[in-house]
């Protein structure tokens, strides 16, 4: 019975069942508030009715944090998925996909009207890779050492454990689909080359 609601700053007091997960990052409050201030519509949550349990109307089952960045003249104006996460009980239901689709819809036309949506996924995270593939994303490039602790210098030094795939999905504004490409897995870049 998932519903989509706007995320509010004080929701942070109620996201432990999601954020206690070792794979979900906990940022400092100002990081979240910055997203809410700059991209208020791109930060939303999925909720489940609790029928009065713990005096809550609903519990938060997942959330999406997104932003826009890049220059249009360089064909880099896009929506970026910063975090999408779902509580274990509500996984394997397509909730994360639903949150991604919602973000895509918000990115098309209107105030933002971006060229594509992108995200980073660990090379070894095959589950997430498959999910995004299913949603129409493809690998644009492989970012060497993206999750590493040191700044890599050799773009041919591949390491599945710390490399990330930069995955993209072109949106209707990119009529010629210039922002995506085939065989992106074979295009290697360093983290400093992906800044917008």
């Amino acid at each position, binding site marked *: 019975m998932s*519903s989509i609601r706007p995320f509010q700053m004080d929701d942070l007091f109620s996201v*432990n069942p999601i954020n206690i997960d070792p794979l979900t990052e906990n*940022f400092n409050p100002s990081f979240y*508030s910055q997203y809410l201030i700059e991209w208020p519509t791109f930060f939303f949550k999925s909720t489940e009715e609790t029928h009065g349990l713990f005096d809550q109307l609903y519990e938060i089952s997942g959330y999406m944090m997104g932003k826009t960045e890049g220059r249009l003249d360089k064909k880099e104006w896009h929506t970026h998925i910063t975090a999408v996460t779902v509580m274990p009980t*509500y996984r394997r239901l397509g909730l994360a996909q639903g949150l991604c689709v919602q973000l895509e*819809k918000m990115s098309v036309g209107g105030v933002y009207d971006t060229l594509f949506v992108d995200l980073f996924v660990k090379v070894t995270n095959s589950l997430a890779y498959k999910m995004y593939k299913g949603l129409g994303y493809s690998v644009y490039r492989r970012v060497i050492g993206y999750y590493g602790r040191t700044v890599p210098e050799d773009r041919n030094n591949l390491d599945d454990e710390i490399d990330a795939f930069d995955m993209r999905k072109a949106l209707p504004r990119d009529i010629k689909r210039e922002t995506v490409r085939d065989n992106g897995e074979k295009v290697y870049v360093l983290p400093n080359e992906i800044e917008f």
Partner: protein
Amino acid sequence: MEFTDIVNLLDGREFREADSQIKRGRLKYPNNSAYLCLLIYSAYKQGSKVKAIASAKDFVNKHALNDANSVLLLYRLFSQEGLTKEAQQTYETALRKFPILGPKLLPALIEQMVDGVTPINIKQMEKLLMQLQKVSGETKDVYNAAFACSLMPTDTLLNQLGVKLVEKVAVENTQQLYVVTKLNSNLRQWDAVIDATETFKKKSAEIALDLEIETLYVEALIQSQNWTKLRIHTLPKLTTFNDYSTILNFILALRQLAESFNATKELLDTIPFKRNRLLSYLELAVQYNMPHEVYLQQYYDALKTKLCCFYDIRHYPKLNALKLEEGSNDSHVEINNQKFKLILLGEDYSVIIKENEAIYETACAKKKSLERYELLPENELILMNLLLDDNVNAFEKTDRLHSVLSRNPDDPRVRMWMMHSLAQYGHFTQTILGHFEDLKIKMIQIDTLGYYISNLVPLKENAMVLFNLYRYYLTVPSENVSMVLQGMENQVYTKLEGFFNFYNRSLNSVGELQLALTIAKMTTVLGLSDYSSFFVDRIKTRFQLDLLNDNRDFKTLWKFGINTKEAEAYANSLLLLLTLKLEYYKTLLLNEGNPSNAHSHIKNLNKLLSGEDTKSLNKFETWLYRIYFNLFKCLFKYNQKEMVTNMNYLTKNLKFTKVMPIIGEFSVLSSAYTLLIVSLVELVHNLTGLTDFKHLRDQLCTDIKKVNIRSLVEAELEKTGASKFGFTKHLDNYDILISSLK
């Protein structure tokens, strides 16, 4: 030296330099009221609060403040003391007499109001913003003022005023539209909400409305019983927006329009999202008073392999008609079935417990090793057993959790249960800390889950861990200030209320106070006086007990659908906060130099110790706080007539022989026992240097040293057969603690 520089000196507790600057200023400019204000503020910061406040009140009554800095300073002083009326009067009088101050004073007051120390006072905020929009006339200020009006939903006049303000200014973006719809929604002017939203949509069709506005619009359609519009609004969303609330509103609209069950169901058939579609059938049947068993079964059959299945349908009245699949090989089906059985089969848990164990063991045998970060869903069944099985003792339960966690170290909830379970024993606080660190608890989680490590034994390494955690509370106030001010500057009205709530809830946090008190206690025992005075100062200046916000999370632990009564009882037991408040006043009094402040704290302490809640204290706690209460009355000569009685009380009761019979009632393995020993050691440290009590202190110290905790614990372990659980691991901590007594 500038006015603000002197204020900074006072805030930085550099009183000597500040006072000399004030003196110099007063000599040079005897008629400048700013220096008099600084003098009052200096007295306030140096602890003479009562006197300073009285002087400030007197000053405001006698002088017309003509400089913005003085107004701001006195406003701040009154606000920090919760004297809202006086704070308001300060700037209102100044503005009335010197309107020229307005453009400079008002924005500064708003900024000062969001000071990271005092909660945001919406009423005052509204007053300031209202005056500011009058002075500036800028659209931004008009909307800010109108938005502030909307934050008081029951104040009709204010909301009407807000509507009037924005009527003059065209709505140019969705954030402004939100203010208009919010005000009208508060006034229950549903047609105005609908009209404003639809006009905006017509004008700016390409702009998607914020979810907050959508919610207000739908609410307006429902409240105004505009069922046709609600149908038109929700129907296209059924196929494009996976949102259960929309589906419920669609069903409501069609029911009100007297659409038949079948016709409505046909439309619901178009929903492409399976889970929400199947649930919509169930809800439709309930709403139309039709039998819902068939839809319940349909949902179960389709979603039984998902962990949400139980939670989605457990509340439906005909749950007992559900035919559970038997002999399934799917682990999620088995887990759901076990939860359903718990509801359906009544109180005999023995069968369920046995089955849970068998399912778990089979799952473990099937899955010899787990991937990194993989969670074994069957862990939940063991958690269920721990709650249901009365035949297993606490040690065995902890041991069982330990084995589950060893197999699946990445399951955060099992780790939380491990901490919860270990918390009943006093000797495992270091182990709890290890689990806490493994969970990588940080940022806001420190506030919500930090209470798990509030009973750490005083050790230097533990103090360091707590200092590091406390850093969160040092950075968050300034982050919150800039969040609120930036939110207002950017006019993000849809999020501002959430910002205000977050800001306010971060202040006077129970989690922060608990951590600060633990550190103050720990540093006293460890003799880390520099740290101690820093935290005592925080406790003194940052908390108002009547405004405490309890952000601690007691819910995550229990989120597996059973035993909510136990969960509530557990949470309620921690909600009383009496010991926290007693510790607060104890800490203040141990560090108070001003007798008039001390008398007011003693009065508050007395109130707490005479209240109904004291029933929740154990016998040792009652003894301990009575001792402190009498001690403070003697030290601060609270009541001359009672001095002899107070002294006699201490001579009679401040003895280990008085504690001995009480101690006997605690298990030496319990956390209450550890807390007791720590509190006694702290008491000895607090008595050190008080000449009148030297004899009592020395005797208590000698008696505590005689207690051989190690042998007591070992004997108890032997007796209970719990030796195999590794309780002796942290016994050295007691030796270290006792050795701190000289």
